[in-house]
């Protein structure tokens, strides 16, 4: 009996259970990764690394969108807080997506497949680097750095929280400086949420792919959460066949990233070109432009959004947003008509803004009082739920009544 078996007995007697018992005979080497995919091998001084390469022509379509990069992407860079004086050209972008051995993100999580793509000579090239076993990691990180040698901006989907921290951790563990530590990063998840969360609610890449790019994956697709398990099985059994689906999944993730990147860049460069079919989208885009401080465009988008929205709640929200932008800009006259429209839709916030305005700016105290009373009347039934607001209105009413009395007295 070998030592670990003794240990196994001892642990079992102590009532300790770990993992599961393994049948070693299952190990078969008949399906290595080389037999499953068309592969390339890159040799380095640290060992060779296997990868799968593909080259896409730019008119390749991912759903309704092709891979032609956007003519300009300055606004997207601006949104990502990338300083305008940094010269960035097409070949400085790297699209990245990682498949890992787990989701915890701790030091025991490894990247076993890294999909990278970049524009090269008028095409989009994709290379997926694969870790055949953990001892290859040093070489793995090296070839990845080689691929990324011109990188200035990395583009990911949820990479800020996931992919990039894990990549940096791997570099620290291998004691190699990470090219991803100080690089500019555009996380398309963040901007996707800003653009489409109102309409789509769920902004996972699969959702965005289906609804925005109008792209549907084929049967080879394996959902991302199964990847860790398939890799673990592959290490144990040597059977790489299930990994084929993981490669496909990763490949499509990266290609969708590129298509989405261009699409979003285009939207930001030409926000008013297509009349967006959904007013939610106009509103969301308007908010993005408001944050970018491009208020003219923001106003046009807001205008589009509430004019075409039939749902009262949404229309109210859109009206109030635009009104508050006008207010910030001190353009009260414009804000007024929006507030009035919202007030006619029963918006309490609008009534409060109008009351404020008439109390302090226009000094039409009677109008302010009317609005205040109207609001109090409307809130009567739900006082407890809106106690703060109710109290504010009550205080305002008292104040207004006193002010009115004073002016009447002065006569």
């Amino acid at each position, binding site marked *: 009996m070998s030592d670990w078996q003794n240990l196994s007995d001892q642990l079992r007697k102590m009532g300790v259970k*770990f993992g599961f018992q393994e049948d070693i005979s299952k190990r078969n080497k008949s399906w290595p990764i080389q037999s499953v995919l068309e592969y390339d091998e890159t040799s380095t001084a640290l060992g060779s690394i296997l990868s799968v390469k593909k080259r896409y022509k730019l008119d390749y379509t991912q759903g309704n969108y092709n891979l032609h990069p956007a003519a300009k992407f300055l606004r997207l860079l601006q949104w990502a807080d990338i300083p305008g004086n940094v010269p960035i050209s097409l070949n400085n972008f790297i699209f990245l997506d990682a498949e890992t051995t787990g989701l915890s993100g701790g030091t025991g999580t490894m990247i076993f497949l890294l999909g990278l793509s970049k524009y090269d000579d008028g095409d989009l090239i994709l290379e997926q680097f694969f870790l055949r076993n953990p001892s290859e990691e040093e070489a793995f990180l090296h070839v990845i750095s080689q691929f990324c040698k011109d990188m200035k901006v990395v583009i990911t989907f949820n990479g800020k929280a996931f992919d990039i921290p894990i990549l940096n951790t791997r570099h620290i563990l291998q004691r190699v400086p990470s090219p991803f530590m100080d690089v500019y990063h555009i996380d398309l998840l963040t901007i996707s949420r800003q653009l489409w969360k109102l309409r789509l609610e769920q902004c996972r890449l699969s959702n965005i792919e289906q609804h925005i790019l109008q792209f549907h994956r084929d049967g080879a697709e394996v959902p991302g959460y199964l990847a860790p398990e398939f890799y673990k099985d592959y290490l144990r059994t040597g059977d790489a066949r299930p990994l084929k689906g993981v490669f496909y999944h990763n490949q499509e993730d990266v290609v969708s990233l590129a298509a989405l990147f261009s699409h979003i860049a285009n939207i930001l460069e030409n926000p008013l070109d297509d009349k967006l079919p959904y007013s939610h989208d106009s509103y969301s885009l308007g908010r993005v432009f408001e944050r970018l401080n491009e208020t003219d465009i923001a106003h046009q988008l807001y205008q589009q959004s509430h004019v075409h929205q039939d749902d009262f709640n949404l229309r109210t929200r859109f009206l109030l947003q635009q009104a508050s932008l006008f207010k910030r800009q001190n353009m009260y006259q414009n804000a007024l008509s929006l507030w009035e429209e919202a007030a006619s839709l029963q918006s309490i916030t609008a009534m409060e803004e109008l009351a404020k305005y008439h109390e302090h700016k226009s000094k039409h105290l009677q109008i302010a009082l009317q609005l205040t009373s109207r609001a109090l009347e409307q809130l009567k039934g739900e006082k407890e739920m809106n106690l703060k607001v109710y109290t504010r209105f009550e205080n305002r009413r008292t104040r207004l009544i006193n002010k009115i009395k004073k002016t009447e007295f002065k006569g």
Partner: protein
Amino acid sequence: MELNYLLDKWKNDQSFMDNVSAWISTPAVKPRTVSFPDNLDLRLAKGLYRLEIDNLYSHQAESFNYLHDGKNVIIATGTASGKTLAYNLPILNNLLSNSKASALYLYPTKALSQDQLSGLNKLIASSDIESIIKPAIFDGDTPQSHRKSIRNTANILKTNPDMLHQGILPHHTTWHRFLSDLRFVVIDEAHSYRGVFGSHFANVLRRLKRICAFYGSFPQFILTSATIGNPQELAESLIESPVQLINQDGSEHGEKQFIIYNPPLIDQQLGIRKSAVITSVNFSKTLMGNSHQTLIFARTRRTVEMFLSYLRDSLPFHEREQVSGYRSGYLKKERREIESRFREGELKAVVSTSALELGIDIGDLESVILLGYPGSIATCKQRIGRAGRKNQNSLAILIPTPDALDQYLANHPKYLTENNPENALIDPNNLSILTQHILCAAFELPFSSNESFGQLDPYLLRSVLEFFSQQSTLNQQGEKFYFVSDDYPSANVSLRSSSPNRITLISENEDNKQIIGEIDASSAAWFVHPGAIYLHDADIFLVKQLNMEKGECILQPDNCEYYTIPKQSTSIEDFKVITQEQHASYQSNYGHLSLKFELNSYKKLRWHTNELISIEPLNMPPVELETLGFWMNLNQGFLEKLKAEGKWGAYQNDYGPNWQRIREKIIHRDGNRCRACGKSFESQILHVHHIQPFKSFADSELANKASNLVSLCPACHNLAEINVRIRSGLAAASNALRNLAPLLIMCDQEDIGVLAETKSVLANGMPSILIYDNIPGGLGLSRKLYEKQTFWINRAAESIETCPCADGCPACVGPVGEEGYGGKSEGIALLRGFR
């Protein structure tokens, strides 16, 4: 009334002094000081002056110098001796001259309070070094938004073992700045790291050191400890490196009075004393009435509530709000308020569980009352040490309960005031604990097969790594072992239980369901069998249901007047001797044991009086235990001597000659029926019971007269025997040994088991007393008892000898129960005979 006058009044009161089992006066102690070391940074010197400190206590200087020389230290100088400055000063001194250096401070409590930072912050502020030294607390309550900046800038980090284990080590790459030049690790209250918790913690330290080495840092360790019997041994077991012991206290102390007031006996037979709670309440009233602020420590929340209600009831209305309770269940805000009201003097008395820990500032206390011995001498001394003021007298009163160890210490107070014999013990290589941490370590950094893990035998390490790779939890590539599972191993490791197999404790009442904790599967049957009363964090629960497959136990908060102890029958399945010693009258052995436990019933005992209320049946599947233990086999000569002296007691085999024939006759006379319940049984099942106990006769023939004998079935016999059977010397001795074991080893009563058998397989059919670690794989507890067996046996004998009872009571040989009564002289004869 001034404290001194009150003390004099007591001294002159005979009825008071009758109950005082000890009154120890300690005169004021002047400090032994040393001027600031030459290499102390000027800024710190100035900072100390501004805090009105112009020299160091001798032990603070000692610590400073040892640390400067690159050594590890353990500071075991007692409560309120300035231990904090003893490590803060050298650490700050070092960090000031090394801009990238950092220090890690570890505290055993889960929730760290800002108080633990306050001493450090004061010194940093008065030394004007806020721009250089950035301390931070990192625990479960630290908001996410602060964590990033702490990782990037803190150079002193205060945290606890759980956070280190789950929150920092598995993410060490995000801490690489902090770990790259970690110079010092402070381990505060090191005596808390004993038993299972300590064994886990030692492994967490192994992982920490391994990761530090990866980043190129090799920190020095500074431990502080309450006074225990083996501080250096504990420290060196925890960090696996040599440690310098600093235990000569140079700080100053005011005059102190320590009184042990033992409530008088009301019933000698049952060992019942006047209520310790009421006695404590009376003391509080007297002290309050004389304007002396008092802190009262109680053992359970229930006792806190009881005390509060008794005290408040006896006070006039306006004085009731001057009294408050304190426990961990209170909200943070509430606790802060109580602490500050006490500091300001608004509260005259606070009664607390262990929640009012040392780190918390409540000012200088005039008097402390300990309601019951807190379970360890170290804790007892710490709490007593809370009372103390520089230029005035202070008072600590211990009011023991009728429990055996309480009473023993009341009669032998030197263990509370002189050297503490308690040993804190750990076993980092307990297989169940060790393997869990090797897995966590592999997650943190891959293992090379020629690596070491602390001082673990590399051969054993390799076996564990291979075991894990057979399980596909680790992947072996050549000589390296990688973690490739999608688990997060430290999430499954609880630092407070010995195995990964745990039962979740769920408290349910009408309104809600709440998880209150976990317990090892291996000890679940003992602690939380259906019907058990379970104490958790000083709260009391009744177990409604235990589901081992689901891993769940449902409990209900309860306030009933009893507690429970299960009755288990133990059988020894296998054993293997590791070492052995031959003595004159016995043979002592230490080795491996395979035990099997069957829990068939449990006792309900009344709180405080330990009176037996009833015995309830239990139907639990047997539990197996592989562990280590030590057993003492009586030699033939010893046994003969005891028998000759009539000290061998009433064993079934010793009912005189012809017992077998007499027995058969009686069973035949009774028609094979039990005389109590009337059911018939096979003759080998029936027992024959002496109506008047065998031992009470001078002559076995008289005892065995047919009119004194009756056939009973086992169940009825049990009930009949409860109050009548006479306890044997073996039972008396093993009770005393079990009661006194915590004097030597810091453990809970349940951590060791004692089994005494008249015909033991361990002794080839001779009598034997076995002591074993009640934790799978053992933890070194019985090993320590083996090493100090003479001391232990003598203390146990003493506890019976010096007990004021007539013929045995719960405080020495055990409560009256199915073991019978008496047994005092038999117990003494047996224990004193071990030589």
